[in-house]
């Protein structure tokens, strides 16, 4: 899995590529945890760009759900960007469509934090 971390204003965007499955999912967990730690004292505003993610399994979904609850608990927010195919189906099956904020456009995702 490849993760590129970049900033737009006070929003952190994680561009993820590859598969969020099996032990690879822990790379994403570490990357998100690092951003939560960096934001310590401030509100974490994170966009998870899944455009180049080929597959997410239950373990990977669990990492994203855990990140959602952790960030939410600290007053922050995580938004999902470019949720397609397998991942969208997975979220629908798991009845999490109403939980996650999803966007197809990066500008809209970033603006949603303002």
């Amino acid at each position, binding site marked *: 899995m490849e993760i590129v971390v970049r900033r737009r204003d006070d929003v952190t965007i994680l561009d993820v590529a590859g598969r969020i499955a099996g032990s690879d999912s822990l790379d994403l967990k570490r990357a998100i945890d690092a951003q939560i730690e960096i934001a310590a004292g401030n509100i974490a505003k994170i966009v998870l760009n899944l455009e180049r993610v080929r597959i997410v399994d239950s373990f990977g979904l669990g990492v994203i*759900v855990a990140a959602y609850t952790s960030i939410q608990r600290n007053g922050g927010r995580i938004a999902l960007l470019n949720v397609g195919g397998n991942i969208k189906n997975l979220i629908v099956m798991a009845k999490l469509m109403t939980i996650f904020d999803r966007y197809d456009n990066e500008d809209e995702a970033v603006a949603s934090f303002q």
Partner: protein
Amino acid sequence: MDRTPDGHVISLDIPSSMQLVYVLDSVISQILKEMGFDDESREQVNLAVIEAGTNAIKHGNKEDVNKRARFEFILNQDKLTVVVQDGGAGFDRNSVENPLNPENLLKSSGRGIFLMETCMDAVTYEAPGTTVRMVKYKKSPSNKQK
């Protein structure tokens, strides 16, 4: 083009390391492509096999690399059967909570079995719960065995 030889069996036997889940992803992806499953079915079976593999490696064999997780892919013209076996103590399907219950929705784990059963047409567990058999049909939903 359908190049599926009827009744052929492909076996895979891997050490119980979560770092090897990618092998499953690669193998099942290629089998599904060769069998001519549609895109949606390919995604579903791919996910179900990864989930079954994760269960065997993580929960069954407790990630003990000295234990093997065994996979059999039985290719037929009309269906793919996947048999996954681990060397663990087994489990009771009835003891697994429903991840769709409101109190479970935001839990970070517990969706693997549910996803396997949702994505495949038939899933059966053979006593004592160390073997799971999953079937996906190539035809329309009317052919489903659920």
